[in-house]
């Protein structure tokens, strides 16, 4: 591994401080703000993990709910038999395994088909779980009783989000990250400079899927009662895409810029207009795609690129 530059050390330090400050929140408030922050942390982890794969590859995955639900169910099924931390690890393995299978089967097909496939996959897994439960168990749902409170869930989510960020940061500066950058630019060139494009994409999808499954496993105690429609809620997949696109996927902290305002907005909307939540989500989706297709960070990048191009032109004119 190449040594960290001063800039990178500064980013790491700043990140560590921010996460430490975020972890202090339950000491200040245990009510509304904590509950809101659980949602923000959850979607921060989900969106950043999603963007880890979908950002560089431009493959839009709607399988978030499948990974998330499997994580939740891992805890639901195993909580009486195994210690909770072990279940988190199992959830990660299951998420990675599913992503590996899906990746091997689908990453050779192009963008649109991948979107449809991942959406179908989430529904398929949900139906399979429902079918298995009605066939072999007496009830559709599962009870999850633990002695974990809201603040414990929050702390775990902070740790998970920090882990996602750190992993993404380390990947971005690795050969794999560089390979993904090249693949995102031009896959033909990527293959011809010696990159195994299919393998790189599968590895990244597995890492992303593992993190999403762990997020589901962490959230399981919060539901108390788990059933397929809530654990495999397709809305999770859509929200993750909207928030990540709002923030922008080109930068590591991009999705976070989308998650914070959108989660707060959603919270307000569902509190005040509980019957019109879907309309607001739809409108938000349209507005984001039309007005800021590259997200908030994309706008900043464009401004920077324009400035750089102008500087380069002026430099050339001066030289001429």
């Amino acid at each position, binding site marked *: 591994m*190449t040594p960290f530059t001063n800039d990178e050390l500064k980013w790491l330090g700043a990140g560590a401080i921010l996460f430490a400050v975020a972890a202090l929140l339950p000491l200040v408030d245990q009510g509304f703000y904590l509950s809101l922050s659980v949602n923000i942390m959850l979607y921060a982890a989900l969106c950043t993990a999603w963007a880890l794969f979908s950002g560089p590859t431009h493959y839009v995955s709607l399988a978030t709910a499948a990974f998330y639900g499997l994580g939740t169910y891992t805890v639901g099924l195993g909580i009486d038999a195994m210690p909770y931390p072990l279940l988190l690890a199992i959830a990660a393995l299951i998420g990675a395994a599913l992503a590996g299978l899906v990746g091997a089967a689908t990453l050779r097909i192009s963008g649109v088909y991948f979107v449809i496939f991942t959406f179908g996959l989430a529904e398929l897994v949900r139906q399979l779980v429902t079918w298995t439960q009605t066939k072999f168990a007496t009830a559709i749902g599962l009870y999850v009783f633990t002695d974990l409170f809201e603040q414990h869930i929050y702390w775990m989510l902070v740790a998970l989000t920090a882990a996602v960020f750190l992993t993404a940061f380390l990947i971005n500066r690795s*050969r794999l990250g*560089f*390979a993904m*950058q*090249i693949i*995102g*630019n*031009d896959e*033909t*060139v*990527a*293959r*011809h*400079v*010696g*990159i*195994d*494009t299919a393998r790189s994409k599968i590895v990244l999808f597995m890492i992303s899927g593992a993190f999403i499954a762990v997020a589901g496993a962490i959230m399981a105690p919060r539901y108390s009662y788990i059933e397929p429609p809530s654990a495999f809620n397709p809305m999770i997949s859509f929200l993750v895409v909207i928030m990540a696109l709002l923030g922008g996927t080109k930068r590591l902290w991009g999705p976070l810029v989308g998650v914070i305002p959108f989660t707060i907005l959603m919270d307000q909307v569902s509190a005040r207009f509980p019957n019109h939540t879907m309309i607001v989500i739809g409108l938000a989706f349209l507005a984001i795609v039309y007005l800021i297709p590259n997200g908030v960070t994309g706008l900043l990048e464009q401004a920077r*690129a324009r400035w*750089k*191009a102008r500087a*380069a*032109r002026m430099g050339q004119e001066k030289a001429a």
Partner: protein
Amino acid sequence: MTAALSVRAATKSFGGLVAVNEVSFDVRQGELLGLIGPNGSGKTTMLNLISGALKPTRGEIALSGERISDLPAHRIAQKGVARTFQLVRVLPSLDAEGNVMAGAVFGHMRSWGAEAHKLARALLGRVGLAGKGHMPVDAMTYIDQKRVELARALAGNPRVLLLDEWLAGLNPTELKLGIALIDDLRREGRTIIMVEHVMDAIRSLCDRCVVMNSGRKIADGDVETVLGDPEVVAAYLGDADA
């Protein structure tokens, strides 16, 4: 001595169309081979077969005696075949140095980190882009983009370099620079296959030429002999009685 690259009865058909038909030739170590022929004669398809962008329907391609024609493109690149593209393909989100590094990190000879940066800078200097390493490539002129692409292909220190009309679209001044650059690579002892239409370049650079027409090889030999061959003249200009 085994050839640096040998093509044996390579055939590629797309449905009923046979784009490359039973073509065989050898490229010796350190040789600059021109692959020429009229438009649509199958030259670029031939390069695509060598680089692994396409798989031959039949036949075999070997690099220093080792069969590469059933490997995927990235494995062929790792074995030591690098190429440029007919329509220049740069990576717009990376600067010039990043573009060249792409060729250095995963290819035949690999480096990473400071070493790869150093190599990329040296190669940019080599192709005449010293000091432009941090320029965004989409702000570059066409010839500079082509230079970046050439530097990227060189970055993995390939055993065989494929140039697909690298000189096309350059103005006369740029063409002179371009020819000098390729000549420089040849003197360095690189093995190169060059698909080209620019006759001046072919005459001044190539050690040997293979001529293709309608997917078949119609001539193979030293440049002057091949270009005087009646069948080659007919392929380019039409038959005398046409």
